């Protein structure tokens, strides 16, 4: 516990603090940039792009060593991974546009081929005598053990630029994600905007390689956005809520892995993100599962209550036990289903409202208003008091329940 608290407040040593801050920044960048990936329904493209970074890592190492340099220069490796990731992305785009193959097939093909090529190149690298090749395989699942100040700077600078670009491009990206036909008709270059969006995703992938690894980065791009969707109905808020969820996952994940020996950071971050997602899934107001169940039950109760009152008005027996229980709880019927005085009064009102609606449909001009009849909406919400009085005038005086 003490180690956890130390880590939480960045007191667990220089390296742990560096990792926690880096992971939080990466999480924020991934969450916000991943929002449009999710809104454009192209989440899996990012998985292929991430896997397509691997051959770049191997190639960059080989090139740098053969030029006599240090094969593990971070910027060199990241540039190499960005290059092959971009090629992979363009390939998917080209296959989808120029052939009859669907995007999922293109994703599968590119992901597999590039990853395979990457593994082959890493094997070649292992057998090279020159260079300090140890550690390249950490790009698969990420590693925090050797995190340097330099790595944190790459994440901070790259992450800030990505967030800034996401913010700058949010309008065209929103438009393309929501309604690409309209965007094209307004003169936006949809293909270019899509490529820019994927470019942002690729940037996050590349800067996150060292920390989270290429296999799990897709989770950091997608889970926060999906989580954020539960909390808001507005796309620009999704961006920032996803960023916050991603940042929190990164920070907490890094802290947890620092406080327990040999816990892998990347996977823990993803599990924390998933935990936030699960909580949102069940408990978010509005779109959460719990809220939906409660809403449905309230609605069901309204329907049963109304149908029960209509049955009373028509002097039919109420057959459903649930309806009887519901009305009995309000004191409208006795437990055996016989209406009380209050129940009779309510039933008469409900029956009269039905007849008012009938009149409204006959006499009222605005079909938009009469069209709002759904059996549940109170007539007082649709028509003014004066209009209802007019319906009553045409209906004649209220009748007793027996006359209905």
């Amino acid at each position, binding site marked *: 516990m003490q180690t956890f608290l130390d880590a939480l407040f960045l007191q667990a040593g220089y390296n742990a603090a560096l990792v926690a801050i880096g992971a939080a920044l990466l999480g924020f960048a991934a969450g916000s940039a991943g929002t449009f990936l999710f809104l454009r329904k192209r989440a899996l493209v990012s998985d292929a792009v991430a896997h397509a970074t691997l051959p770049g890592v191997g190639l960059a190492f080989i090139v740098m060593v053969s030029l006599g340099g240090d094969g593990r220069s971070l910027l060199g490796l990241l540039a190499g991974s960005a290059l092959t990731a971009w090629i992979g992305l363009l390939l998917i785009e080209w296959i989808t*546009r120029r052939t009859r193959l669907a995007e999922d097939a293109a994703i599968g093909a590119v992901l597999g081929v590039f990853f395979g090529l990457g593994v082959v190149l890493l094997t070649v690298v292992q057998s090279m005598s020159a260079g300090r090749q140890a550690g390249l395989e950490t790009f698969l699942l990420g590693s925090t053990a050797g995190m340097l100040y330099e790595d944190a700077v790459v994440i901070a600078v790259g992450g800030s630029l990505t967030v800034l670009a996401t913010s700058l491009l949010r309008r*065209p990206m929103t*438009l393309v994600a929501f*309604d690409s036909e309209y965007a*094209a*008709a307004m*003169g936006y270059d949809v293909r270019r905007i899509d490529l820019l969006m994927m470019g942002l995703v690729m940037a996050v992938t590349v800067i996150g390689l060292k920390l989270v690894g290429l296999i799990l980065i897709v989770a950091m791009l997608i889970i926060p956005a999906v989580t954020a*969707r539960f909390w808001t109905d507005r796309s620009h808020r999704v961006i920032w809520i996803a960023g916050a969820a991603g940042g929190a996952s990164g920070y907490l994940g890094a802290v947890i892995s620092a406080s327990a020996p040999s816990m892998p950071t990347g996977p823990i971050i993803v599990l924390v993100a998933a935990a936030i997602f699960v909580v949102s899934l069940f408990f978010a107001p509005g779109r959460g599962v719990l809220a939906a169940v409660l809403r449905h039950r309230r609605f069901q109760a309204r329907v049963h209550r109304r149908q029960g009152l209509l049955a009373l008005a028509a002097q039919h027996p109420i057959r459903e036990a649930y309806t009887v229980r519901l009305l009995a709880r309000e004191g409208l019927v006795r437990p055996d289903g016989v209406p009380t005085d209050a129940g009779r009064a309510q039933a008469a009102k409900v029956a009269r409202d039905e007849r008012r609606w009938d009149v409204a449909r006959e006499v009222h001009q605005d*079909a938009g208003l009469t069209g709002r009849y759904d059996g549940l909406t109170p007539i007082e919400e649709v028509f003014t008091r004066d209009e209802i009085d007019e319906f009553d005038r045409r209906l004649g005086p209220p009748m007793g329940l027996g006359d209905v």
Partner: protein
Amino acid sequence: MASPMSPGQQPTIATENGRAARPVAVPSGAPLAVRGLTVSYGEKPAVFSVDATFPAESMSAIIGPNGAGKSTLLKASLGVIPRLSGDVYVFGQAIEKARERIAYVPQRASVDWDFPTTVMDVVQMGLYRRVGLLGRLSGRMAARARDCLDRVGMADFAHRQIGQLSGGQQQRVFLARALAQDADLYLLDEPFAGVDAATERAIIDVLKTLKAEGKAVVAVHHDLSTVRDYFDHVFLINVRRIAEGPVATAFTTGNLQATYGGRLAATHLDELSPTGGA
């Protein structure tokens, strides 16, 4: 994925240099003029070598059977789907130079209505070109968006998530977004498909107001029984152009038969076309 043509200038250049001898002159100021438009899905043309001219200050309907290329004509004119050949002129200019004069209302089914956006957000999309990437949507812009919602009778719904709207309400919101653009030419793709009677009324009222303000309206339309009430001008298409002109002279039994072939019963035609029955 429909990828719009990059806003290159090829169509214009081709006209000025290579095709000066075209038999059909380009009308100088028509709101929308299409010349030699061919669009193909694979190797099957959906629209073949179509010339069309839609007049100013009027409401035009694009009419034809399913699969006749009505929507394709509209989308290809706008560059939403690539054209294989042909030129498009908007108020006498190449379309790329006149984008801000066009407002487009796509088919309702073309978007995901669960998208996280409110009615107000959607209408403000119509202002994106004007405010640019970063410009703040000022109070004046917001007031204008609200005004457009009011014109389609949706002001009370400004803060609803769009998925909570009925089909007719969704269509009205799309129309409000187009109004926010304050364009001179309005292109609508099946605006009355699947909407309630009240919405159809509201939409047609707005469109007639636009026409009265001197704007041009072009709509893909499928309900032959309302053509005479709603429109001034028709364009009949079935891959090729069949006929075009004022409703009184072009919307005839003969032309409809040529457009629909055997798919339209003769009795149906008599009802539609007073000039044809006798």
